[in-house]
């Protein structure tokens, strides 16, 4: 059977039975998203590389020990592993004081990253780097909903559960993340006019009226 046609669950089962190529396919499918998510959280390529390895090694151990639960999907499952490791990294380092958010959520208290780092200023060599940089400038709650939904494949319900907020708050944060990102793109002229038509920059963006966090 061609590995590229297998579902993630099938690949996990094949790897459990000793098929290394099945795991190689799984790694190929998920490495970029997981790595991007970790990098956007920890903002250090070396740490992100380490955490990526740790994430997949944990997954390997769980699968080979027969502890992988097929009830969930592979992508959000490995996303949760990566997310937990990234959070643990910051908790261990305690780079920033804990801050209780207005809504009482605590999960990202220690994730108030140094957004204006020298490294972030070195980014922006191309449009993607600019967008990446703009994601990092988003309010921390919005940024993390975005990372969890986009790169770690968690559902909004799961994001709500993990961050201790209602699903409507999680949805609102994602919505504001997208709106704010577009605002920032337009403000920073992140769009390359060769790639994006003029009308794209002229789209009306509704003003924030509710929760911006």
């Amino acid at each position: 059977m061609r590995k590229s046609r297998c579902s993630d669950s099938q690949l996990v089962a094949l790897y459990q039975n000793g098929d290394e190529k099945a795991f190689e396919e799984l790694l190929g499918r998920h490495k970029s998203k997981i790595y991007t998510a970790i990098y956007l959280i920890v903002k250090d390529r070396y740490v992100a590389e380490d955490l990526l390895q740790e994430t997949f090694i944990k997954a390997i151990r769980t699968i080979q020990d027969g502890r992988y639960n097929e009830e969930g999907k592979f992508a959000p499952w490995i996303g949760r592993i990566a997310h937990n490791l990234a959070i643990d990294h910051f908790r261990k380092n305690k780079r920033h004081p804990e801050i209780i958010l207005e809504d009482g959520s605590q999960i990202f208290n220690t994730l108030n990253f140094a957004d204006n780092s020298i490294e972030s200023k070195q980014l922006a060599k191309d449009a993607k780097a600019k967008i990446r940089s703009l994601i990092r400038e988003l309010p921390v709650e919005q940024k993390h909903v975005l990372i969890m939904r986009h790169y770690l494949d968690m559902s909004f319900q799961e994001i709500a559960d993990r961050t201790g907020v209602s699903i409507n708050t999680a949805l609102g944060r994602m919505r504001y993340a997208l709106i704010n990102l577009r605002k920032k793109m337009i403000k920073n002229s992140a769009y390359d006019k060769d790639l994006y038509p003029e009308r794209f920059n002229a789209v009306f963006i509704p003003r924030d009226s509710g929760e911006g966090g």
Partner: protein
Amino acid sequence: MRYLYHETPEKEAEEIRKALLNDPDLKRKYLQLCEGKSEIDQVRLEPSSKSLLAIMSYARSAVKEKH
């Protein structure tokens, strides 16, 4: 937002599709969010081959250990 991320049940998704067809303002706002989403989807970083080789090496050794 859940529709944008394919999290709505089919019946609800069908209702949203109809609403989008009949409400130009709703459609415009939806397309704005779609565009933002697709921009984010383009942001992908690649880990080093060294990391990938290390992971695969571990994956192979775990199989050998078990089988």
